[in-house]
């Protein structure tokens, strides 16, 4: 079995009108055995950027810590918050540093640009090749299902509450068909004013 599927878990991000959403499931497993149902895979980077990671859980944690380190140093030296595009390239180069012995995660980035509030979403592969998208990006063991559901549910220029509904339905319906993801979900909606975080109950089996 692939190491990318060892712990299970899925992440999805979507762009709306002056807002973005990013969501993950909560399962942490050892292959088919569920160890915990409170393992969040989305982390705040700044007030307006969030990073989700799907893949090997140890690397999710290690990279969370490494990105926190580098973003904090960036913020304190530059005396300003990092931009989503800049952060995406930071993620990319951090992963490519391990080109021949990679971290086994696929990151998903969601954020709003400074001043413009331009929605930004992107994902990369395990070695940091960036995929910029205008609609949605996905990662994890339910990738193929997420693509299918997102493709049919997503539409352009959704308002925050509609985007919340869309991303929640997308994630929940996708992970219901995936044995390695699920056990509840957490959704973050980033708007120019604030980040709204909601925990979802899903099929708990």
């Amino acid at each position, binding site marked *: 079995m692939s190491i990318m599927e060892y712990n299970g878990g899925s992440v999805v991000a979507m762009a709306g009108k002056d807002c973005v959403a990013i969501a993950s499931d909560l399962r942490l497993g050892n292959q088919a055995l569920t160890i915990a149902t409170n393992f969040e895979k989305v982390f705040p980077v700044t007030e307006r950027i969030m990073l989700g990671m799907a893949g090997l859980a140890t690397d999710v944690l290690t990279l969370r*810590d*490494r990105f*926190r*380190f580098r973003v*904090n*140093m960036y913020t*304190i*030296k530059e*005396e*300003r918050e990092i931009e989503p595009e800049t952060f995406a390239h930071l993620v990319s180069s951090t992963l490519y540093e391990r080109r021949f012995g990679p971290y086994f995660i696929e990151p998903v980035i969601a954020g709003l640009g400074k001043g413009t509030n331009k929605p930004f979403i992107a994902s990369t592969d395990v070695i940091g090749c960036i995929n910029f998208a205008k609609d949605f990006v996905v990662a994890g063991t339910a990738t193929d299902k997420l693509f299918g559901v997102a493709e049919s549910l997503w539409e352009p220029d959704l308002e925050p509450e509609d985007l919340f509904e869309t991303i929640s339905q997308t994630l929940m319906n996708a992970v219901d068909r995936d044995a390695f993801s699920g056990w509840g979900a957490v959704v973050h909606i980033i708007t120019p004013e604030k980040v709204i975080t909601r925990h979802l109950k899903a099929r708990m089996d």
Partner: protein
Amino acid sequence: MARRYDSRTTIFSPEGRLYQIEYAMEAISHAGTVLGVLASDGVVLAAEKKVTGKLLDLSVTKDGGYGGSGEKIYLLTDNVVVGVAGLTADANSLVNYARTAAQRHLFTFNEDIPVEQLAQRLCDLKQGYTQYGGLRPFGVSLLYAGWDPYYQFQLYLSDPSGNYSGWKATCIGANNGTAQSLLKQEYKEDIKVEDAIGLVMKVMSKTMDSTTLGSEKLEFATLTLDPTTKKPKAKIYRPAEVDALLQKHDLGKKEDTEMKTS
């Protein structure tokens, strides 16, 4: 005779002294004053700026960055602010080292670095220059204002020799003797941040050369606990806020005198 033992930082004189370290300390006693007062619900730092003048570009300090003008008071990490006295260039290097050390701690332990440990990290570095040859010691003393869950609010002082100590109220830089004795007279146990700000302002106005205080000569910072999140919150005052604070304590300059801020 003393000169023979001056050229190397790490050589004792026959009287058992390290001249370069003493000279570094001497240099600091001419630097802008930095004052710190520990209160029961926070820590207050104030610093006298030496690099001033009409032509100095301070436009970014008005609303960019964290509020400091980058001369005396720096944010090291979420729970520690530092005031420096001495060579600013040396201080910048130390500040950078401290910020990295703080992040390294956060990386390995997932908690903010305890204040004393951060002071120790810097002192280990400073001490090295009193022992290993070839280089000049750091010409900087620092005041650390911080909070951690182990010992709550703390105030530390460190000097070029790598010594550090904890204080309720202390001072580094020019006129530190005067300031220290004023603090000793005026400091009360269980002082609150609000009163500590007043005390700092008062002592500062008496030790500084200029008769009127203004944001062009003063940097100011507080470290308190956010009442909702219970997490430490460092605030480095912006020039306009410093002036407002001085007005509040009747120490600011009168309306009609020279330049206006904000």
